[in-house]
């Protein structure tokens, strides 16, 4: 039996009238690469923030590995809110790379990667530095260690944000539109980096509009609309499926902007 990395159980979140999350269920086994696709405003960022319990849901549970995050559910069915300290201990098991990166501008690249290790994982500064150097080296930005985030390019910032998250040895990585803030010529670079991670067996959930990634790298595609997961499965099947009108419409529209993207459905049409 494969182990579970992340599980969402009946997540519900409303902002007034809008349903940002509507009964979201899923289980991500270890090693799986999931892409999360959906129209703007459908609740993708809210979902990622909820998975980290940054935005406690109105209802539902999150499980990281075998551990609940935010709210415990005992086998007898008792619900218990976790203390802030408990939550802080579980959060580093999920790595998050934000759409806006959120690097800390007053710390150098190296400090951005070492500070959480020292404060949260309680590593010794020299161990944290070794770890940071190894990661920055692997991401090919070791030469930028002493620069500040304001002094490096967008693509380099992205790598720093990834290194910062990876340094905590997370069991799953969440990426929120990792390519949306980048210049077009850098998109390919980041995608091949993600492909590298996937080949290395990393568990990932990637919010993306890059269909090339969703189809070729991810092994599973979840499609979200109005806070619901309306389609979930093998990427090619979901993309070419005509069962759900919203999904079909979305991919037809996206394909219009991706001339290199061909799916079986489109080929049939020709």
């Amino acid at each position: 039996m494969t182990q579970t990395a992340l599980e969402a159980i009946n997540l519900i979140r409303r902002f007034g009238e809008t349903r940002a999350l509507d009964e979201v269920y899923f289980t991500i086994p270890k090693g799986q690469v999931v892409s999360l696709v959906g129209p703007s405003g459908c609740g993708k960022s809210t979902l990622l923030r909820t998975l980290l319990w940054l935005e406690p849901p109105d209802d539902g549970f999150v499980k990281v590995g075998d551990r609940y995050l935010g709210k415990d559910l005992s086998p007898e069915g008792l619900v218990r809110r976790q203390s802030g300290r408990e939550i802080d201990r579980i959060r580093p098991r999920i790595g998050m790379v934000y759409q806006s990166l959120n690097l800390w501008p007053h710390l150098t690249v190296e400090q951005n990667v070492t500070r959480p290790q020292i404060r949260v994982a309680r590593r010794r500064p020299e161990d944290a530095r070794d770890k940071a150097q190894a990661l920055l080296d692997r991401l090919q930005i070791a030469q930028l260690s002493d620069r500040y985030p304001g002094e490096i390019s967008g693509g380099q910032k992205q790598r720093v944000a990834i290194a910062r998250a990876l340094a905590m040895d997370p069991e799953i990585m969440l990426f929120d539109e990792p390519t949306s803030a980048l210049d077009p010529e850098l998109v390919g670079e980041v995608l091949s980096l993600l492909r590298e991670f996937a080949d290395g067996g990393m568990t990932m959930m990637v919010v993306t509009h890059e269909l090339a990634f969703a189809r070729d790298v991810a092994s599973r595609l979840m499609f979200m609309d109005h806070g619901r997961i309306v389609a979930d499965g093998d990427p090619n099947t979901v993309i070419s499926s005509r069962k759900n009108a919203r999904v079909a419409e979305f991919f037809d529209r996206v394909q219009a902007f991706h001339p290199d993207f061909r799916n079986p459905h489109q080929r049939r049409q020709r």
Partner: protein
Amino acid sequence: MLDPTVITENLPLFLEGALMTLRVTAIAFVVGMTIGGIASVAILSSIAPLRWLAAAYVAVMRGTPFIVLLFLIHYGLPAMGVRLPALVNGTVALSLFAGAYYTEIIRACVKALPKGQWESARAIGMSPVAAARDIIIPQILGPMVPPVVNCTMTMIKESSVLSTITVAELTFAGLVVQGETFAPFEVFITVALIYWAITAAFAFGAALFERRLAGANRNRLMTPLVARYLLLDGGRT
């Protein structure tokens, strides 16, 4: 017609008063900053009653004249059975008053940071204390300097009101000398010039400090405009 002996003969009195002004303001700065730190955390917290309490404190302090607050404390404490020297009452009042303005400054500086700064720190597992200490506070220290300087200058000036409850600061020294010499023009011009010198020196020192802070952290843009401070820039707080 100007009588310089009024000034020269009473210079020690003026200087002692000035020293007291500086001392009172310095204490109000330290206590006020402490209050500001605590109250701004309350205002930024997600606990509604705490937020309301802190907001009410700020609104009351900002909406009431300092002289009225001073009297409230100076006459209110004895009414509650707490008898303290006027100097203590005055310092307490000035600290509470300053604290409200510092609260506003800290709140505004934190609000000006992108929300993701706090969130990314918490997401990676930092406790609220660690996130504040490592991520938020270092980033607001720089932007806080100009408004805090401005506000503290206002407090130096407001401390003149302590003369009304007989705290022996600079304005009180002026009133004493004027009572003895009946030369109000000479006396109050002298007092004004001393205040002017204090605020100007303070502003100048703050500008130097700000520049050093900017030099220490090349990543941040600041406004080290000494010239600006020479004109004592900054509006009302």
